[in-house]
């Protein structure tokens, strides 16, 4: 409940403020958002598995974001930024799907 409210509050703040993304952040923000979503779904799964740990969640959230941004940055430096971004998105997407599947099994026993 609280995290969902927080998410909603964040979205509202963004909609109201409509901030411009700084140029240097523009290539990394989409990847960072996907990575954070992955961390969130992983956390939800961990809660249901009974192994949730707040420290782990915070660290995994931040490290996911940082690592994703780092990978994209490295790819941009190597000239394969677009391909590497696609790869990161694919990997994170697969992880999100598997986490959602686990959550579904917990919540609906199916």
């Amino acid at each position, binding site marked *: *409940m*609280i*995290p*969902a*409210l*927080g*998410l*909603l*509050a*964040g*979205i*509202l*703040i*963004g*909609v109201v403020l*409509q*901030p*411009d*993304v700084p*140029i240097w952040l*523009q*290539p990394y*923000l*989409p990847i*960072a*958002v996907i990575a*954070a*979503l992955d961390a*969130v779904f992983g*956390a*939800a799964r961990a*809660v*249901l*598995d*009974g*192994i*949730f740990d*707040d420290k782990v*969640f*915070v660290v995994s*959230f931040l490290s996911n974001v940082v690592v994703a941004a780092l990978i994209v940055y490295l790819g*941009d430096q190597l000239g394969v*930024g*677009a391909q590497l971004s696609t790869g990161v998105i694919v990997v994170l997407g697969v992880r999100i*799907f*598997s986490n959602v*599947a*686990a959550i579904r*099994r*917990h*919540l*609906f*026993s199916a």
Partner: protein
Amino acid sequence: MSEHREPAQPGAVQGAGAWRRLARMGSPRLTKANVLVLALAVLLGFAISTQVHQTRASGLESLRQEELVGVLDTVTQEGVRLGTELRTLERTRDRLASGADSEKEAVELARARADTLALLAGTEPATGPGVRLTITDPSGKIGATILLDAIQELRDAGAEVMQVGPVRVVASTYFTDSDGGVSVSGTSIAAPYTILAIGDPDTMASAMGIPGGVSNSVSGAGGELTITPLDRLDITAVHEPAPQRFATPEPVPTASASS
């Protein structure tokens, strides 16, 4: 995605228990974990909406180099294509404009020819410098011959448009003697005869006065010829051309003239 069941963890829950645990974790508790999660959730929501806004509003600045090259290629090709189209349209426009010009020229040429022919055929009134000839005939000896001579002399002197009495002189005009006067193309006129001629007044006046000319003939017949040069002379009589029954114009590849 694999659908097989993973080995259950020690604290794992299923079904209703899972919902309860999710609700408990999400319920307001003033713990460090909850505050952190809340902060991260707010951050995530903010990032999501910001990114969505950015994506909707993004122009070229968020594109990568390869994408920009692609966009540039597309724009260049579009420019080349539009340039080709532009040149085609310009050629078409030039062709149409020159066509309109030559058409206008042809129309003006045809109008000028029509004017000339109308004067020759006597279907339009005319104006210009000329002379007025008045021939008196007190003794009644002046007939069609002298008038015809006068017309011929005036023509030789460059008269362009002539009128005898109320009759316009054209190619088919004829003179016959009639009782008490002269018949011009079937219209009877009586002395004094008036001839109007548009042309060079001096040339025509001197042509009338040459020895053995019209002036002498008129004097010999007992009449008197008066020549009045005029700067501006209006010839208003027109000739109504009879419809041609047999002759039709031979088509020639020049601008046709109406008369």
